[in-house]
């Protein structure tokens, strides 16, 4: 494992050998909480790829959810942190993009493929605080602030994530504003969509929207009912994204959309996905309203025209599970 030494920007990180830190923390993290099937995944061969999005914003792709990094004079803001096992590689890539400290981490929701690296990466950052937050001047930059919707915190506590990974700044209203690296940032809560704590992050100057898992380009929407997800919440979130995205002239580009998983997108991609999800919802609702049981609905094939693109018969989220979640979500 390569030795990582940090630049002299962070009091926490000065001359510290990061490899030992990561090794120790990952071992501890894995002992503290289960990542389910992901815990069995081999991360040794995972490379973190960087895709420049626009004007200091980058999409990092590895294993787990996409990470977005915003860089600038104020420091680094990152959205989601993938798995704990990848934190060293992720941090190395971020340092290549900017030597400034990680000031903020925003979590789009509480699943481990999006928050797993919180506890490793937040301590390497430095959010400047003051007033009655820090007693001593040198304490003022201790770790990056982790921002999330309130229920993300509740879920992470319930699931016994390590304390270091918990959000340090939560909110419970529909929207939170920030101004960082010379641009306004809106964090928009999407109620009961993929989970109960989803947020969309909208960089208003660079015109980039980060969606978390309410939008992916790889699969049917994962509706985590146990954490408050619902089909109508997903559709509402997708419509919100369509509302705030604007294609450029000739319809190429314009507002860029970083999905929770999959490729960088724009409004048209979200529209196609929104249309697909809405059409399937409408079909299943009509079938259910006609008196069909769940098994009869499955047999009717309401997703057939999209299955070879988005469906799966194996893995953690199958087409059958998607149909069941929609069926449950359209009753009444």
């Amino acid at each position, binding site marked *: 494992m390569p030795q990582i030494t940090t630049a002299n920007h962070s009091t926490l990180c000065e001359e510290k050998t990061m490899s030992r830190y990561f090794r120790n923390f990952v071992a501890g993290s894995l002992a503290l909480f289960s990542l389910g099937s992901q815990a069995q995944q081999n991360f040794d061969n995972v490379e973190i790829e960087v895709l420049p999005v626009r004007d200091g914003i980058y999409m990092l792709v590895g294993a787990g959810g996409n990470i977005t990094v915003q860089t600038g004079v104020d420091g680094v803001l990152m959205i989601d942190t993938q798995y704990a096992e990848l934190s060293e590689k992720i941090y190395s890539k971020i340092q290549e993009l900017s030597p400034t400290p990680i000031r903020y981490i925003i979590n789009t929701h509480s699943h481990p493929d999006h928050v797993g690296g919180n506890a490793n990466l937040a301590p390497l950052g430095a959010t400047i605080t003051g007033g009655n937050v820090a007693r001593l001047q040198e304490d003022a930059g201790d770790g990056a602030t982790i921002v999330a919707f309130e229920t993300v915190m509740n879920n992470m506590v319930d699931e016994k994530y390590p304390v270091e990974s918990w959000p340090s700044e939560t909110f419970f209203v529909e929207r939170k504003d920030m101004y960082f690296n010379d641009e306004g940032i809106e964090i928009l809560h999407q109620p009961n969509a993929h989970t109960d704590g989803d947020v969309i992050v909208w960089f208003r100057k660079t015109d980039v929207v980060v969606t978390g898992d309410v939008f992916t380009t790889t699969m049917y929407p994962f509706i985590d009912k146990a954490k408050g997800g619902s089909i109508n919440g997903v559709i509402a979130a997708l419509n919100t994204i369509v509302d705030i995205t604007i294609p450029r*002239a000739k319809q190429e580009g314009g507002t860029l959309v970083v999905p929770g998983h999959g490729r960088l997108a724009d409004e048209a991609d979200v529209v196609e996905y929104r249309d697909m999800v809405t059409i399937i919802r409408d079909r299943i609702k*009509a079938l259910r309203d006609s008196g069909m049981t769940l098994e009869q609905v499955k047999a009717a094939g309401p997703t057939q*025209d999209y299955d070879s693109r988005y469906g799966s018969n194996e893995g953690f989220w199958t087409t059958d599970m998607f149909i069941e979640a929609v069926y449950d979500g359209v009753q009444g």
Partner: protein
Amino acid sequence: MKPASHSRSIGVLLVCSSAAVLSTQANAQFDISGNWRALIHEDQPERGPGPDIMEYVGLPINEAARIAGMSWDPAQLAMPEFQCRPHPSDYGSRHSNLRVWQEVDSASQITTAWRTHREWQEPERTIHMDQRERPASYAPHTWQGFSLGTWDGNMLNILTTDLKRGYIRRNGIPRSDEGELQEHYIRHDEFLTIIAVVKDPVYLTEPFIRSSNYIVDPALAIAPYPCSPAVEIERAWGYVPHYLPGQNPFNGEYANRYGIDLDDSLGGAQTMYPD
């Protein structure tokens, strides 16, 4: 001295001629630049006003494509998100007038790319000739896709990937974002033929091949085509036009009008070939 000088001149001439021949061979290409008028009298009903709803005969589509087509509601085209969309590059050759020009590296005089501009909705396209790497799997897909070209004699071969989801036909038969386009541009004096071969593992059972012809027209003026979407019909937030299975009111209309068996009107590879 004169004979010697004469020999040198001949030598220089031979060297220059050889260089010119080598250069032609190295770049082996035809000039396809210019303004090209689309000859849409070929397949005019489809390329002009558009195909009938549920007219799928001759398309090598699978059941998934057929279901998608039968769900399609033309009201979709009135939605603001759809009003200004260009045709994707695999459909573009069926429609508008075309301008083609080349980008040349000033130092080497090698053509690095061919560029195209179409009239309707103004899509512009770059066909890279430098054999650069294709985009990563996580890079955006676009309406025109990512195109690499190579010359084979007088034929420009182009492979286009990284396309957004589009359509095989303008009546709801989709082409997925996993589809790809192989094209062949062939110039015969004043005519340009574009052969487009679309492959799609999601919606096609075999490649779908179309050819479209153009005639050069130096006087052709390609007009601007600005587009600004507008709400034409007030709809509920998030409304998505579509027909539920079995409820498409146009089911059978095309087959009845032309006296075609309904099953045949719904396409499939078997409808591409003579009995």
